[in-house]
Each structure stands twice: as structure tokens, then as C-alpha cells.
């Protein structure tokens, strides 16, 4: 939204991007699928012929190397364009922040790129990147981080030098840090402004518990206390080859790039990788929770519970089950009922992502005008029940299975997609055989399996229901549809009102 000069063309392009997002991936998928055999250009697109999809995913072992004895690297050559991308994935993140230094990981990640290097001031570094026309970025999230450089192949020497200087010896220039700190404080002041931010924060507190790292938030005191030395120490602690997984794609020779990486990483003492992120110890308390934001006319609602882990034997069946329930847009039940049939929300759906380090979550969510929040929530809960009580139709099952099989090549649609898929798998410890057998496992799912995993996975009596919006209006509901109410959703249990915390201290007023 930077320029904000909304010309007709700008609107057209917004719409174009929105509408064609899918096409891009599909066309590249087809190209990868080995169907580039030229056919004569037909007079009309309807005359294009498509053969059956015959696709073999790439082998991760063919691209895997180990650099300096410690860092796995996936190197995928692609000589179509003279560009190279090198990404270093870093194990570690905000879960390693010392108590009282919340915000340290995000500042460290951002300031690696922004704050210059031992050899260059931040301004010199920016200028040098600009001259090379390179793009360099860095960041640290909750459980992992990335640093990435994209450059013209002819500038490999200088671009890699800059990139690894940054990664290894960032300067953390204090004026840039001061700026980032003041931006963080500004953002903090707006913490309670948007219902989206409130919903995300309170949902994590309800599901993971207030003390788990996933729901910890920075405060003015924690940001104020973070010094340049803290950044340098945190960087020392987590940024080293023992914590790296590398992915690279583009116009390079594998042996040459590998030798370059060996030189840099070989001269860089590796430590042990950090411990994995801790699992939450919290047991979510089922029930209805509301946060009052009287100045909005739409409520945001999340409904869900703790889910499953990656590697669960029912992983693929759960994925198919959720696609039928709410995970596949307009063909899924929640979207159909809440949006298409009743017109209560623009977007409504569900996700059942498996957790990597501990159990993931099942969460259905939507936004609806205050008066119809209860009705939409009831529909979602009814659909969760129906998923358990009835087998899906043959059509529904075929649709989601076909979709999963047909879009499968997207994970490998380009050299950089291949490299980053494999690098992320390595980082998160996914079985390398996962992709090889994925489509077989999808095809094997039966309607009985769907109902079986729905009964095992979906737990109506454990649902946590969070609604953020104008509470009085949401409770009042729609006078024309008295059969729906938030009270009824609570099934006789008290509705818990969560107050807004002080944005700078994150202390919640006692009521």
C-alpha cells in the first residue's frame, strides 16, 4: 500500500493478481511435469490438449550436500535466468530469548541486515547492495530465522562476500537500532487497535497458555532494556554453521558454489544446534471467550482446539478431512454454508496444520457482522459435528483427493521451490520419504477413514470459542433469529470476558 495512488490500472492489477495467483503455479507445475513437448499453437485456447499428469517429484538426496561437516545444503541449478538466490535457514528464535528481553530475536534478525557489518557502516553496506542490485534480507521468528540474498550471477563474488559478512559479523550500528526500537514501540502502542491483532494474541494465550513463548509479547520495558551488546550476544549464541540449513537455486555450478560455502563456513566455528522449542504445558479450558472492541461492526471468531503432530499416522487423512470441512475454499463445507448459503461472512474456513515440535491446532475462523456472529459460529460447530457423524459423499472425497494430487507438483515448481521445500523439511525434521509416498497415501484415503479421523481428531467438547468485537451487539444477536445466541454456544457455562491489556506493559486489568 506504499504509493496509494489508486489508478484504474492499479485496481486492475490488484484484481489480476488476485485472480491469477493459481494459474501461475499451475502452469509452472505443468512445465515441470515434463509436458513441454511443443504442440502446434492452436487457433483457440479451448483446442489446447492436456495429457494425463505424469509427474515424479525430485529426489532430495540428489541435491543434498553437507558443508563444513555440519550444515546441510540443498543446491539446485537453474540456468534459465542469470540470477542466484542463497538462503541460510537458522535454527533458533524468540523461544531462546532470556526472560525480560522479549523482542530481542526480532530486533537481532532485522538489525543483521539494517545495521552494517564489521567492515562497513550501515550506509556503506546499503549503498554496496544497491550498486550490485542485490536483494538481501534477514529475520528471526519464533522458532527459526532466515537470511537470504538474491543477485546477478556475474556478481557472485561480491554479493556472497557482503552476505556472509553480514551474517557472520554484523555491526548492529546503534542509530539503526534506536530507529528500530522506536518503531517497535510505536507498533506496540497500536497493539489493541485492530481486532485481527487482538484475536491472534488472545487465541495463542488461550491455546498455548500465557507463559509459553508463542504467546509471550515484548513490553516497553523489555524493548528499552535491549542494548547493542544484547544483540551481539544473541547473534553469537544462535548464528553459526551448527544451526544452519542452506538452500540455493539459480545460475551457478554446484561444485563452485559448494567450494565457496565450504570456505566461508569452514572458517567459522560451529557450536551445537540449540535445543528444540519447548512444548506448551498449558491445557486449554474449553468455553466461550469474548474481547470487547466496541468501535467495530464485525466480530472476528476463532473456534478450535489442540491438534496433532507431524508424522501422525493419520496425517494425510486428517488433511483430506479438513479440506472437506473448511480447508479448501469454495468446495469446503464451512465456506459453503457460512458464506455461499447464508451470506454471513466473506471468508470462513478451517485449518488443521500439524505441529512440528509439539501438537498443532485445529482452528475454524470467520468474520461476521456483530449480530450474526452467533449464527455463523453455530453453523461451524454443526459442521464439525456432522463431519464426525456422517461419512463424506463420494464427490466431496474425490474433489479433495484430486486437488491434492494435481497441485502436488507446485511444491517443486521451480529450482528455488525445490531447494526451499527440502531445506524446510530438513530444518523441521520431516521424513525424506514424505513426498515420495504422499500421493499414494492421498489416493488410499476412504470415506470410512475420513469419518474415523474426524471422530478421533475433532473434539466438540474441547472447543475454545473466541470472539473479538462489539460484545454487547454480539450478545444481542439477530432478533429475527432468536434460535442462535452466544449464550447457547456457551452451553450453560459462564462466558469469559477478557479485558484488553495495557499495550506497553502487557498487564491485564483485574475485573
Amino acid at each position, binding site marked *: *500500500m506504499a504509493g*496509494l*495512488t*489508486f*489508478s*484504474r490500472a492499479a*485496481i486492475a492489477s*490488484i*484484481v489480476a493478481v488476485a485472480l*491469477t495467483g493459481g*494459474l*501461475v503455479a499451475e*502452469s*509452472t507445475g505443468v*512445465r515441470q511435469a515434463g509436458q513441454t513437448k511443443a504442440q502446434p499453437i492452436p487457433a483457440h485456447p479451448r483446442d489446447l490438449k492436456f495429457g494425463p499428469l505424469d509427474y515424479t517429484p525430485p529426489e532430495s538426496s540428489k541435491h543434498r550436500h553437507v558443508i563444513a561437516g555440519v550444515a546441510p545444503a540443498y543446491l539446485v541449478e537453474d540456468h534459465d*535466468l*542469470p*540470477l542466484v538466490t542463497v538462503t541460510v535457514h537458522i535454527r533458533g528464535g524468540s523461544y531462546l530469548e532470556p526472560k525480560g528481553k522479549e523482542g530481542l530475536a526480532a530486533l537481532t534478525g532485522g538489525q543483521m541486515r539494517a545495521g552494517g557489518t564489521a567492515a562497513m557502516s550501515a550506509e556503506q553496506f546499503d549503498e554496496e547492495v*544497491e*550498486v*550490485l*542490485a*542485490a536483494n538481501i534480507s534477514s529475520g528471526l521468528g519464533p522458532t527459526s530465522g532466515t537470511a537470504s540474498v*538474491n*543477485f*546477478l550471477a556475474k*556478481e557472485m563474488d561480491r554479493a556472497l562476500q557482503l552476505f556472509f559478512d553480514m551474517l557472520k559479523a554484523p555491526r548492529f550500528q546503534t542509530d539503526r537500532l534506536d530507529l528500530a526500537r522506536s518503531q517497535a514501540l*510505536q*507498533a506496540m502502542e*497500536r497493539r489493541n*487497535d*485492530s*481486532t*485481527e491483532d487482538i484475536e491472534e494474541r488472545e487465541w495463542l494465550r488461550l491455546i498455548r497458555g500465557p507463559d509459553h513463548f508463542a504467546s509471550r509479547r515484548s513490553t516497553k520495558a523489555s524493548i528499552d532494556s535491549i542494548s547493542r551488546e544484547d544483540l551481539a550476544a544473541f547473534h553469537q549464541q544462535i548464528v553459526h554453521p551448527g544451526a544452519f540449513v542452506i538452500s540455493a537455486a539459480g545460475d551457478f555450478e554446484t561444485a563452485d558454489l559448494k567450494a565457496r560455502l565450504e570456505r566461508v563456513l569452514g572458517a567459522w566455528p560451529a557450536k551445537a544446534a540449540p535445543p528444540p522449542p519447548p512444548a506448551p504445558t498449558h491445557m486449554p479450558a474449553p468455553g466461550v471467550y469474548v474481547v470487547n472492541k466496541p468501535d467495530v461492526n464485525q466480530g472476528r471468531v476463532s473456534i478450535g482446539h489442540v491438534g496433532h503432530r507431524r508424522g501422525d499416522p493419520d496425517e494425510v487423512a486428517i488433511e483430506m478431512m479438513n479440506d472437506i470441512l473448511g480447508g479448501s475454499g469454495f468446495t469446503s463445507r464451512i465456506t459453503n454454508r457460512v458464506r455461499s448459503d447464508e451470506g454471513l461472512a*466473506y471468508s470462513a474456513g478451517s485449518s488443521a496444520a500439524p505441529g512440528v515440535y509439539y501438537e498443532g491446532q485445529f482452528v475454524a475462523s470467520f468474520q461476521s457482522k456483530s449480530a450474526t456472529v452467533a449464527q455463523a459460529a453455530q453453523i461451524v460447530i454443526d459442521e464439525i459435528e456432522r463431519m464426525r457423524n456422517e461419512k463424506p459423499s463420494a464427490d466431496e472425497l474425490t474433489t479433495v483427493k484430486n486437488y491434492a494430487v494435481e497441485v502436488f507438483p507446485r511444491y517443486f515448481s*521451480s529450482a528455488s521451490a525445490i531447494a526451499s521445500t527440502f531445506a524446510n523439511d530438513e530444518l523441521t525434521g520431516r521424513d525424506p520419504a514424505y513426498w515420495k509416498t504422499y500421493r499414494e497415501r492421498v489416493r488410499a484415503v476412504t470415506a470410512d477413514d475420513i469419518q474415523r479421523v474426524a471422530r478421533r481428531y475433532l473434539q466438540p467438547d474441547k472447543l475454545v470459542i473466541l470472539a473479538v468485537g462489539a460484545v454487547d451487539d454480539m450478545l444481542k444477536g439477530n432478533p429475527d433469529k432468536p434460535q442462535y445466541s452466544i449464550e447457547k454456544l456457551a452451553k450453560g457455562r459462564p462466558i469469559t470476558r477478557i479485558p484488553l491489556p495495557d499495550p506497553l506493559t502487557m498487564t491485564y486489568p483485574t475485573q
Partner: protein
Amino acid sequence: LYRSLVLDQKLATSASAGQNGLKWEGYFEASAVARPGRDPREVEEALYQELEKLKTTRVEDRELQKVKNRFAADTFRRLQSNFALMLQLLIADNNRGWRTFNTDPATITAVTAEDVQRVAQTYFKPERRAVALYYTKAADATAAPDPLLADLSDEERAQVGQMRAAIAQMPVEQAKQMLQQVSQKEASAPPDKRKLLGVLKTLLQQRIDKGGL
């Protein structure tokens, strides 16, 4: 321009230049928005000085290389998917024929500092120039300031001015469509843009309320 007019001289809030090569006669355009309190004529003069510099001093090799690198890298980055490739071909075909798509990179690599100076001398001449100065009407001293703009920065006010003009000419249907899109974007917009989006929504609603075509 930005460095000179906005950062160094602090004359303007924005400054940029672009060339619009069309199939027949295109044009080169340099523009800047005066900082509140500065006379647009000062800004005009500063723009001329920058154009003059291109005519009289040879651009530094490093600066030229930087521009070429950026051009090359951005061109390649735009070709990374089939869809983007299709768009770029369409755009190239509409300009100087789709074949320029393949020949442009070599042409651009071959540009020298002397070339830059030569074209500046060829095209930047007063007799080829059209100049427009846009002034905002002096505010009525007795009128209250527009409450709609109260919370916005100077730069945002200038943007609202442009949006206002565009929205006034917009068909109602398009305004409705855009209002819907802006409303959807609003939730995910960075907090410092929300006020501006709010104003944009008000303007669109006013356009819709006014009716007509």
C-alpha cells in the same frame, strides 16, 4: 532528484523522473511536490539544475553501473514465472514490439556515460519543454480546516488530493468495487496507513452516495 531536492535541499516532499517511451512520440517527465512553505517556482528551478548537471557533467561510472545492474536484475526478476513472462511480452509488444524484449538488455548494457550526456543535451532543451505548476487554492482563512484531513501527515494530504481528483471522475460501480477492496485490505494494512485508508473509504463512500454514472 530525491537525494538533492528532498534530502539535501529540503525543498520538496517528493521528487522523481521517468521516461515514457511510446510507440510514436513519448516524453520524459520530471516532477516534484513542494514542501509546505516553499514556492513551487523554487522547486522548478532546482529540477532544471539537476537536468543541467546531466548535460554538463559526465555521470560517474559507478552510478551508471548501479542503474544498469538494477535494470538487469529487475528485468530478470520479472521473468521468474510464466505469467510474469506473458505480461512482460505484452507490455514490450505494446511499446516497441515484442522483439525488443530480447534486444533491450544488450542495448542498455552498451549505454556509456557519454551517451547519457549526449541525450541529455539533445532532449533537455527549453524549446522542447512543457511546464505545469499546480497550486492548491489558498485556504479561506475563516474556514475551518478539513476535519477529514486532520490526522494526516503533509505527504498523506498530498496523496489525498490526488485520490480525490481520481475518485471524483470514477464511475460509481468502480468506486463500489474499490471500496470493497480497500475494506478488505484495511485489516492487513500497516497501522500507520490505516488513517489514510479510512479517508480513502470516506471519499469513495461520498462518491457512491453522490450517485450518477
